[in-house]
């Protein structure tokens, strides 16, 4: 029997994600209506339009570039969380590992004036190291990775603030701008910026992140390594039973997951787009938004590319909302709502299957009675 189109895993994930997005936007719209019904529709459309609110195509291209620049690190964080999740681990520490990557690449760039590749490598290493700590604690001390991840997030945050204070502008809480102080650490652009109306922030970071997503998909689905990691994730005891180094696999998984998050930081900070604020008092939201992107992307690396972009898109869109009526936090609200709704994805899939079950049952009954009728 041919499988119903709507029974396909991919289709269901996509549908569930779309429902989450639409519902999230819809509730956001309601909130806008309640605050001020006058501009609610314009505002919600602004959030959705983001850079399309610019009238000139050249500006649109430029700000598409900006949105992409910020999507790359988000995609990396989402990949980080997804990779761990596929192996049965919830790396809520991605935020901290991202933070560690920030610390490493900025320190290397601004203090030691390393070239970009060195900074990138150090960021990856820093993320991996903290990921590995979570893995070590998990496999040898049985510490739940969510708890240790949360603790490490704060430890890393405070540590980063402390270290990066050494490369802070004397008269602001921000680190030196990379573009001015350490241009050697900027990621190569390869002329990509010209596509986006000479956007200087568009670098190889964007293709690099997409390549990583594809690589992650291949590793998980096609390789022996992925086979081992997933086995460990699904059933740690069975992995041990069949001779896999299950402790090593857990550590490795979290290290890779951390490396991805750390790399994400490098892909943002080494474009010179932002500076780190040495008084940051909460863990970077990038890692948490990564959770949303992962689940919105249906736990699929390719889906994650789109969901990361989408979340960044509406977050950026929030900045353009008319401030006289609404505040820019409205887009935080909407993306938080979407994350919340992502919690219902499993239920949505279940509900879809139930509807399909009923529908097929009805069809079968109808068919059966028709056949019966035919026989009589």
């Amino acid at each position: 029997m041919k499988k119903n189109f709507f029974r396909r895993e991919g289709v269901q994930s996509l549908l569930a994600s779309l429902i989450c997005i639409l519902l999230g936007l819809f509730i956001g719209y309601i909130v806008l209506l309640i605050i001020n019904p006058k501009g609610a529709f314009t505002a919600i459309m602004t959030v959705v339009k983001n850079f399309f609110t610019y009238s000139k195509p050249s500006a649109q291209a430029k700000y598409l570039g900006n949105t992409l620049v910020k999507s790359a690190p988000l995609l990396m964080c989402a990949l980080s969380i997804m990779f761990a999740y596929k192996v049965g681990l919830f790396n809520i520490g991605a935020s901290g590992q991202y933070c560690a990557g920030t610390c490493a690449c900025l320190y290397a760039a601004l203090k030691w004036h390393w070239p970009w590749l060195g900074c990138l490598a150090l960021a990856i290493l820093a993320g991996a190291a903290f990921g590995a700590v979570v893995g070590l604690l998990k496999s040898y001390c049985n510490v739940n990775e969510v708890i240790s991840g949360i603790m490490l997030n704060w430890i890393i945050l405070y540590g980063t603030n402390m270290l990066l204070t050494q490369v802070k502008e004397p008269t602001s809480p921000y680190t030196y701008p990379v573009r001015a102080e350490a241009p050697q650490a900027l990621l190569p652009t390869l002329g990509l910026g010209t596509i986006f109306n000479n956007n200087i922030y568009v670098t190889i970071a964007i293709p690099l992140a997409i390549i990583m997503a594809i690589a992650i998909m291949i590793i998980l689905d096609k390789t022996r390594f992925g086979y081992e990691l997933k086995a460990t994730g699904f059933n740690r005891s069975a992995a041990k039973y069949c001779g896999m180094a299950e402790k090593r696999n857990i550590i490795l998984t979290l290290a890779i997951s951390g490396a991805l998050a750390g790399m994400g930081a490098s892909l943002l900070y080494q474009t010179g787009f932002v500076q780190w604020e040495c008084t940051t008092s909460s863990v970077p939201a990038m890692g948490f938004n990564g959770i949303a992107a992962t689940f919105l992307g249906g736990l699929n690396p390719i889906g994650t590319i789109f969901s990361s972009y989408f979340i960044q898109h509406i977050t950026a869109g929030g900045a353009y909302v008319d401030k006289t009526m609404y505040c820019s936090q409205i887009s935080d609200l909407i993306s938080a709502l979407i994350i919340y709704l992502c919690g219902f994805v499993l239920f949505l899939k279940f509900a879809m299957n139930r509807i399909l079950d009923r529908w097929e049952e009805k069809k079968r009954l109808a068919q059966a009675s028709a056949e019966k009728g035919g026989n009589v």
Partner: protein
Amino acid sequence: MKKIFTVLLVLAIAFSAFAQATSEAPAAAAAAPKYAVAMVTDYGDITDESFNQTTYEACKAYCEAHGMKFNYFKPQGDSTAERVAMMEKAIDEGFNIIVMPGYAFADAIKECAPQNKDVKFVALDVSEYDLTGADMSNVYSMVYQEELAGFMAGYAAVKLGYTKLGYLGGMAVPAVVRYGYGFVQGADKAAAELKADVQINYVYGNQFFGDADITAYMDTWYAKGTQVVFACGGGIYSSATEAAAKVGGKVIGVDVDQSLTINKNYPNMTVTSAMKGLYASTIATLKAIVEDDAWNTLVGKVANLGLVSATDLDANFVGIPTGDGTQWSDSFTKADYAALVADIFNGKIVVSADTTVEPAVSAVKVQYLGNIK
């Protein structure tokens, strides 16, 4: 689930209808004015009780009075790229005067101004040094001599008999540092004159709002004998007033005469305020452009706003309140203040504006305590 959805849908439709009905109300104004003003915020929001808020209030008041279109834009994050995005957005929406408070706009101006020759860029607190190499053909910047205001406040506090002072800065941005270093110099000057033993504790809270941590820190100061704290950084003063209220301590306000707000809740707490004429100068600038058509006299300049008169105290861009906002006493009278202003104006007293090194002092003991957070 279904039910909730239906209810929401009905609500939405109802609201939409209401929106439709009300949105037709505002009619187009008579003639479209020549200018529209947009403000782009720096770190923090237009409610930071500091430069963003003052700039916003000034622009808004002026535009409303003159029937001009005004709006403010808040970048998504604190980066040049995002500031430029908002500036371009404002320009895209037809605004042709962009007001930007904060030294951090230097790079954004360098990027954005040359590409939008027909737009007027008014920067506040962006110094000549920051704008080195910039195309200034459509840019005007104003920098304030906060160090003078700080100096006067410090001088006044010591002269008023306080010997244990504190300085609580917000984030160590140039303006905040200038206030602080000026405060130290002023206290030093007064201490030298009085031959008094004066101590200053000097710290930055590293944020523009108060919370339990900052309050706790302030509590230790007041508990150890600090008499008055110069709370210089947006909403951070709320922690200083909170702590001061417990032990009858005093505070010094910043930017505007803060006695008006602070004393409402805590009578007699404000010793004085170190003020700068951000509001007035912003209005004046807008007036010069819009009414006087005098952009040509401003453009390309970085105005250093400080004292303009040795006698007309209220005409100056920096100073302390001459009315009830300062707790005058026999040891420091309005006349003393006037003399001080004159001395500074005449160059008899020189106040260093250097923010890169701690000011030299001779009579006070300053303890630099870095950042609270």
